[in-house]
């Protein structure tokens, strides 16, 4: 299998009041195409920084990050935005839908930035929302939806530009266990359809669904557990 994303000697150092915090400290990690990885660790272990780096929201201090074979650690802000837009899909713990936009409009946001024609974007957002079981909710605003429905909208939005990699940050953290399971099932299904899935969580039940669990500690990989 080929690597969709790969960190090589990845280090991220934050200056903090005269001292340095090594949030990532020489990480080497490969994500194969179509793999399902959970990243775990206590707070401060570096898992959020890892997610930000993988999501092209932050840049490495040293080392390289290859996304789809391309070294993105040398890209400027605009190119990083394009990478996020085309190759990555984000699912957040707090859903992060834009409150004054409807379900369909929220799903269309990444397509607008990709320059997709409005009529085409509408077609696709309707298809994605239907696929997420949001029929009859197209023109609702986020506040009119349940948590599970909001997260489904967020997942539909993450799929808008058909990304290679889905990044989920505690996707079930704000949901009850039953809805959480539904959301995990949706994500898992997307993974079986070939999308690379990376889930950051502190919940062992969530991590149990992944093929592989990477446990972080103090900016380093403590251990990697492969599921048989």
């Amino acid at each position, binding site marked *: 299998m080929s690597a969709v994303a790969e960190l090589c000697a990845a280090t991220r150092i934050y200056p903090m009041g005269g001292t340095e915090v090594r949030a990532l400290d020489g990480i080497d990690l490969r994500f194969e195409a179509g793999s399902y990885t959970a990243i775990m660790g206590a707070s401060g272990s570096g898992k959020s920084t890892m997610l930000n780096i993988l999501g092209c929201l932050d840049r490495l201090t040293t080392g390289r990050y290859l996304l789809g074979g391309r070294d993105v650690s040398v890209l400027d802000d605009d190119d990083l935005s*394009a990478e*996020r*837009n085309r190759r990555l899909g984000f699912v957040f713990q707090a859903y*992060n839908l834009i409150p004054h936009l409807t379900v369909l409009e929220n799903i269309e946001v*990444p397509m607008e*930035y990709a320059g997709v024609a*409005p009529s085409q974007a509408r077609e696709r957002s309707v298809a994605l929302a239907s696929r997420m079981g949001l029929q009859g909710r197209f023109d609702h605003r986020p506040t009119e939806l349940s948590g599970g429905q909001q997260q489904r909208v967020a997942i539909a939005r993450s799929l808008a530009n058909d990304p290679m990699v889905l990044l989920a940050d505690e996707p079930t953290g704000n949901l009850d266990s039953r809805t959480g399971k539904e959301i995990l099932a949706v994500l898992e299904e997307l993974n079986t359809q070939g999308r690379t899935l990376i889930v950051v969580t502190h919940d062992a039940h969530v991590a149990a669904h992944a093929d592989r669990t990477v446990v972080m500690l103090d900016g380093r990989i403590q251990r990697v557990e492969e599921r048989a």
Partner: protein
Amino acid sequence: MTTRRLFSLAWKSLWLHRLRSLLTVLGIVFGVASVVAMLAIGEGASEEAQDQFRRLGTRNLLLASVKPPLSEEAGESASRVLRYGLLRKDLVGIRATIPGIRRAVARRDIPVQARFGEREIATVLMGTTAEYAEVANLRLLSGRFLMPSDDHAHKAVCVLGDAVARKLFRAVDPVGQEIRAGTDYFRVVGMLAERGEGTGGTAGLGGESDNAIFIPMGTMQERHGDNIRHVTSGSRSYENVQLHRITVEAASEDESSIAQVGGALRAFVESRHPKGDVRITVPQELIRQAKESKRIFTVVLACIAAISLLVGGIGIMNIMLATVVERTREIGVRRALGARRANIVSQFLAETVLLSVTGGLIGLAFGVLAPLAFTYLSGVRTVITPFSLGLAFSISALVGVVFGLYPAARAAGLDPVEALRRE
């Protein structure tokens, strides 16, 4: 993203906070409205003044006799004849010595009671010659104006100003009738169209022809001599004024030749009337002064407008900065979904521009209505020029861009990671 989509999104977001948006743009609304309204009033006043001066004739220069201040004469006998003003030899002198003039026409005014049948009114007899009608731009309603032959033969004929004709004759056609003016009778040969210069006007600047009776200069000379009797509250006084007015028409209308004639006339008057009993008025200079004072007014106004729009702009900027803080999370999300900094800048800039342009449009509406209401209520002339509308509107749009840039740049400069973490 298309510009249209950008603005429709901006509108949506502003509509979400209607009251706040409205309050935010009030500064721009008042700024734009006051610019348009004040320019309209200024322009109206200026045009009014220019018209008034233009009616005097743009190629004319006016010399008027001015009664000297009484203080010098105060102690002297009231029966003494007060002698001042333009002389007949001045007219001859002007015609002979001032270059660049086409003609010079004299006028002499005597206050009288005029009477026809039962009706009697106070009016002014104006002795003049045939050319006066052309020089003073008088229009005939019927009959004819005075002719050179009237003057030579000292004929007892007269031409009535519009107000005089209407007051003395109600139903009768005045032409052909005889009226009494003072102690003499005159046959009416013509009547003038209304000029409507207004009653006030600038003293000595015309505006009298409506209420005058024109008779030949020669006839006036023969009947009245050079002394004019004034009866005021029982005491009587005499004035000796040969001519009240000389209207000089320059050969050319262009500014420099008018200025030359004006200079020559001033030198002439200064040497012959050092006591200051003759005043020179040059309508073209007055028009220029009116334009100049309008220019100054416009500059002052522009400063006031700039200040008020500056204040309005700061108000908008203030709210937009608050909005950026409020929507930090949204900015982070949009950045994560692929928005470039330029996308964020245009999103917030679109909102600011939309705010200020909407404010500008509302301001324009008020700015157009205010002068109309002002004219309706006070009768003062106002003129709304397309220039003022364009100016006010483009300034308001500019304010949106200028004061929107900083908040938009702040929004775009946010670190996506930080912005996403913010509650």
